[in-house]
């Protein structure tokens, strides 16, 4: 990474740490609700980061990441609900459980490529909400009723509101995970992962244990997404099967493609983009209808769809790819 862009990144992180403290000065701009929204963005970003490790850097497609997200969320919820486990301890637990599930799923996935893998993971995404409702698991998962939780409280008596603390909590977790991912990709293993993506047979010939790398990558990717799920369980303070429908997987995929496949920064951008557009699409559609007076009954998803098509047309390599492309072109001229 170039020195200048590292400086930018540090400045951005520093700014992120300062912003919640501005609440007393700017109560409207830095409201609890906005902080909560940014927290959900960071959670989405972590999930997209997980998917990116698998799809962007290892070349395996997954439509099933909502399942790992659900596994993480439920692991956290059950630990907090049944065992009174402190919320911060649920993260490593969710990571381990999701890793195991992801790894095990990665084994049969070895035999599947491309579309077939997409279909298998699709089945996983569809089945997990049903499994959560299953009667033998009902005592644990609360069945369709879900589990109601409490929001994390600031530790050490810090004078922060719940949402301020949630913001920091998500930010710290996201930074650690980002750092870990960046280091991993920069290492021998990371290069092996990418070599498998680029040319499977060549990687094999070079002596890379492709099946091991692929399954472990599946596990790590699931662990990342599971951690995001556990964070969301804390943030929303409620889990239910309806929160983890197949559509969530599509969300992650959109975040991935829009941010930039195979770009770590792109994952963060993608997570932010998804939450932002998902929330403003509806506002935009009502705006078109009531304020501009156009007689189109555009649903929020139509607006969302149009935005996506435009974006894909203008920036086919995602936002990060598009922006760096523009910068490069400007420098050249």
């Amino acid at each position: 990474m170039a020195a200048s862009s590292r400086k930018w990144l540090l400045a951005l992180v520093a700014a992120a740490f300062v912003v919640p403290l501005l609440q007393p000065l700017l109560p409207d701009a830095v409201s609890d609700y906005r902080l909560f929204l940014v927290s959900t963005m960071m959670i989405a970003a972590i999930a997209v980061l997980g998917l990116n490790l698998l799809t962007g850097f290892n070349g395996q497609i997954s439509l099933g990441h909502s399942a790992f997200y659900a596994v993480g969320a439920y692991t956290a919820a059950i630990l907090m609900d049944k065992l009174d486990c402190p919320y911060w301890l649920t993260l490593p637990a969710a990571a381990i459980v999701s890793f195991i599930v992801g790894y095990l799923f990665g084994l049969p996935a070895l035999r599947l490529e491309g579309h077939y893998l997409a279909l298998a993971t699709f089945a996983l995404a569809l089945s997990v909400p049903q499994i959560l409702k299953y009667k033998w698991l009902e005592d644990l998962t609360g069945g369709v009723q879900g589990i109601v939780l409490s929001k994390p409280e600031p530790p050490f008596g810090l004078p922060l509101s719940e949402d301020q603390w949630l913001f920091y909590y998500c930010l710290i977790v996201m930074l650690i995970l980002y750092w870990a991912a960046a280091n991993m990709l920069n290492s021998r293993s990371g290069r092996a992962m990418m070599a498998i993506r680029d040319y499977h047979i060549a990687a094999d010939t070079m002596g890379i244990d492709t099946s091991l790398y692929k399954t472990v990558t599946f596990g790590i990717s699931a662990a990342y997404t599971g951690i995001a799920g556990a964070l969301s369980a804390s943030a929303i303070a409620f889990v239910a099967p309806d929160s983890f429908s197949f559509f969530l997987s599509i969300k992650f995929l959109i975040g991935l493609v829009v941010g930039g496949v195979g770009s770590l920064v792109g994952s963060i951008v993608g997570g932010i983009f998804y939450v932002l557009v998902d929330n403003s699409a509806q506002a935009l559609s009502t705006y078109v209808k009531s304020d501009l007076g156009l007689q189109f009954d555009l649903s929020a998803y139509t607006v969302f769809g149009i935005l996506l098509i435009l974006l894909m047309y203008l920036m086919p390599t995602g936002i990060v790819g598009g922006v760096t492309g523009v910068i490069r072109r400007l420098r050249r001229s």
Partner: protein
Amino acid sequence: MMRTKRRAFVAGLSATAVLTGNRVAFGQKKYDEGASDTEIKIGHTCPYSGPASAYGVIGKTIQAYWKSVNEAGGINGRKINFISLDDGYNPAKTVECIRQLVEQDKVLCTFNTLGTPTNTAIHKYMNQKKVPQLYVATGASKWGDPKHFPWTMGFQPDYHTEAVIYAKYILANIKDAKIGVLMQNDDYGKDYWEGMKEGLGKEVGRVVKHVTYEVTDPTVDSQIIQLKDSGANVFFNIATPKFAAQAMRKAGAIGWKPAQFLNNVSVSVASVMKPAGFDNVQGVITAAYLMDPTDKQWEGHPEMKMWKDWMTQHNPGASLSDASNVFAYAVSFLMQETLKRCGNDLTRANLMHQAASHHHLRVPLLLPGITVSTSATDYFPVQAVQLQRFKSETWELFGDVMHAESS
């Protein structure tokens, strides 16, 4: 001496006025967030997209209702600013939407937020923030718990109570009942099932077969065959419209003729009874609290006429045979009435107080004889149902209006 007495008398009088909820004349203007001299902000969430988007009809009709209220001058001179957001029936999304409504848009209250899991997700939050969560659109029994959740109130008779009523009826009227149950495998189905078990009490062994289906199943044919084979002579049908119709049709086709009990969710003549085949559904019993717009017996009823006029004028394009539109109209009317009674005291506390002070209020389109009553300890607005039996092409009410005490 005389003076103090008079003052005491006046004080007593205004206290009575407060107690009877008639604050309009006396009250000073008092506002909480979301209310002002010119408008009242109300928040709402509903699935306009996603797998449960069929419920979106309710949201659209409610929007049309507030629009028509505003066109007629609003409530006590204030316009209703109704902000309806799409949560796609995803509880995580509902939390986001509701936080936006409460913290960003600063609504006075929410109204008729739809769905059991979605309302569960915001239940605690609304009560922590002390924002009224009024007349939620779900039949679960947990919404009437003023002791622990004083800011949340339901609307319709809960599923649990309804099932208890069927159970009691079965025990009293059917000899040697052997009950077969078909149940949709979700929160709504389970609420009914729990109610049935409670109503049967120690006779719970009378349930000889209990089968379930998933919303995503194409048919319930095999379940019905299983029920027939179990030798059941009573069929309790806990299914949403499409499946309820399939079930009754299949039962008729394979010659199974039990006494049938159908949950209130699927009483529509047009979308359930007719497709099931009128021959197959004679004698089916259900409990109702709203008039069914496709039921011929209400054709001349003034409230039904008024509703149909309103629908053609203010909600054109919406289906006149969809019972959801009747539901939306009735619950919005109750909300309007509640706000009207708040007068100029539009605080959240007073809103809850008024919502909990209805006394035999007649809400249009409820069955004749059913009214809305609430109190500080009774957070179940509509609690009465009446049994009805299907005869030729319409429902026929029988017995008395039953006021069920909910658990």
